[in-house]
């Protein structure tokens, strides 16, 4: 177990180096002038451009630039953007909002998705099952920006139930609808996954044993059946939380949320290479960490799984 954990953590190092280098290279390979439009209507004066180029080492070979960047990151200095804003400060402003949004989305997935999956899985074919299958198919086939825009217009503009956009504080309450939009597709998958898993397991021998033992019906379902059916669902939820963190670009755009998604979008447009590299690397690390947690959870959920 300890050795397994160490091995997995060590794997983070090459992944970290690889992603930072690839993203760094890609951002630099994008054609265009990072200083275009930085000086209002006019073109930036040559002196400004050469000063900035000097200051950010833009004339150095790519590899040199990369290692300079890496050295700074490893000493805890994430650097600053071309406009002189501290990257770590920006991250600290946006990250909590995105994390909050992701948690709201995850909770909605678990509550609605798992409940709908368990109910349809146990009841089997019928009206409710068809309703859930059709509505999840509907959600899966809708792109996030459609779900987002429709809900924003209906709930926010037409009926006035919510504010159409989220305030700068992005409180939990304000994030419910955006969280639903962000999590809707995964929620549909969670529903179907839970339903399939329950359907497969409900005729298992150990469920029959639990009934034959005289355990109450709800215990048979919620202890014996659910625990065994949870394994694929937890896997999905874990890896999905990783992508929820980074995949919020569209949702954050629609609801004007100041999170990581918006940050990365603006910085790609402005060719802020260092910023983009930092965020993407961070997201990759979050993703890796989530999959590590999921892998460790396996052993908790299913004692037959052994590491080493």
């Amino acid at each position: 177990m300890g050795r397994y954990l160490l091995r997995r953590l060590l794997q983070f190092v090459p992944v970290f180096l690889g992603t930072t280098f690839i993203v760094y290279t890609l951002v630099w390979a994008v054609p265009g002038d990072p200083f275009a439009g930085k000086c209002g209507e006019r073109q930036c004066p040559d002196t400004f451009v050469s000063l900035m180029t000097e200051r950010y080492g833009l004339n150095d070979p790519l590899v040199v630039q990369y290692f300079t960047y890496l050295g700074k990151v490893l000493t805890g200095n994430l650097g600053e953007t071309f406009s002189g804003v501290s990257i770590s400060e920006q991250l600290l402003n946006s990250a909590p909002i995105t994390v909050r949004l992701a948690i709201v989305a995850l909770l909605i997935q678990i509550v609605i998705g798992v409940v709908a999956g368990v109910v349809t899985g146990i009841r089997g074919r019928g009206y409710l099952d068809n309703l859930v299958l059709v509505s999840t198919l509907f959600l899966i086939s809708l792109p996030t920006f459609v779900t987002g825009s429709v809900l924003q217009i209906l709930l926010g503009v037409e009926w006035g139930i919510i504010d159409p956009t989220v305030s700068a504080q992005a409180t939990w309450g304000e994030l419910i609808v955006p969280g639903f939009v962000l999590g809707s597709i995964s929620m549909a998958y969670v529903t179907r996954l839970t339903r399939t898993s329950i359907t497969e397991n409900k005729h298992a021998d150990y469920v029959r044993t639990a009934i034959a033992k005289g355990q109450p019906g709800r215990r048979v379902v919620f202890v014996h059946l659910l625990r065994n059916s949870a394994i694929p669902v937890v896997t999905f939820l874990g890896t999905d939380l990783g992508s929820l963190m980074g995949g919020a670009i569209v949702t954050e755009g629609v609801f004007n949320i100041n999170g990581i998604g918006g940050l990365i979008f603006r910085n790609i447009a402005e060719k802020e290479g260092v910023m983009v590299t930092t965020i993407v690397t961070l997201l990759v690390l979050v993703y890796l960490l989530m999959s590590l947690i999921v892998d460790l959870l396996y052993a908790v959920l299913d004692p037959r799984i052994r590491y080493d």
Partner: protein
Amino acid sequence: MSTVYDGERGEFVAEPAADTVPLLAVKDLRVEFRTNDGVAKVLNGVSYHVDAGETLAVLGESGSGKSVTAQTIMGILDMPPAVVLGGEVLFHGEDLLSAKPARRMQVRGEGIAMIFQDALSALNPVFTVGFQIAEQLRVRRGLSRAEARKGAIDLLDLVRIPHAKQRVRSYPHEFSGGMRQRAMIAMSLALDPELLIADEPTTALDVTVQAQIMDLLRDIQRERDMGLILITHDLGVVAEVADRIAVMYAGRIVEQADVYALFRGPAHPYTEALLQSLPRLDLKGQDLKAIKGLPPSLTRIPPGCPFHPRCPRAVDRCHQEVPDFHPLPGDRHSACHFAHEMLVSGYPGSNPDKHSRGLSRGDA
């Protein structure tokens, strides 16, 4: 029907009326499986009974309805596809089939417990053995966690699992096959049931372990004066532990008799064929006599006696008339038109006089 056992069991019978009510009586149970491929008539009027302290062996080939009968008694049939068409399951005279779900749940574990063939899949893989035993005590008896754990350790001790205190924390996959079956027996005994149904408890185990498990079951049954229904297709096991035998074929009981009587002289050609198919030391080197043909498909059970296509004694009457399950001398029953003739003409088969089972008791 139960008068034979009065002499032995009389002391346990408190009420004069109680001796006419067996611990469990199954009456004319009829069950169908309705699938897309058609309707399979799985049980076609099964009746048997078992008393406290008695072991009834239910014998038959795969698909003869042994397990389905047990599952109907326990109320764990998958419905659909199964449909219970009729019959009664009387536990102390109370019909379980018409009982409320809450009452049925109460009877499970406390009145009737069941152990299954494959303990590895029948135990929940994600919970420790101790949890699964203690769960019974916690949920059904309202014991605290610590008390229930102690109870679980005692039960593991009872089924002779060494180092019960440590083993209570093990998961089913960490046990050997025999230990798993022991753990399952421990779990079934948690609520001190009056009747235990063992559905082929030793089929998945190797021979030495089989014997240990059967010994354990027999000891526990004697200690607790528990009724035991032993479902098996192993005649050897039956001969050793059963008091009475019910032979099933195509969803019917075809013969029911005292174990000694049945081994000495079967009153149904199917039982006779089963006994003849046993390997015997005195017929060493000869071919085994297998029963010709296959059991009928339950979607198309032949008219008349269901065994007639494979029966060496079959005559025209067997093709048309379903034989009654009728009483015979010596408290036994048979569903064969020629049961009387079979008993009178004697049985040329498997039990010579010097056989221990043949000598120990006279009957018929």
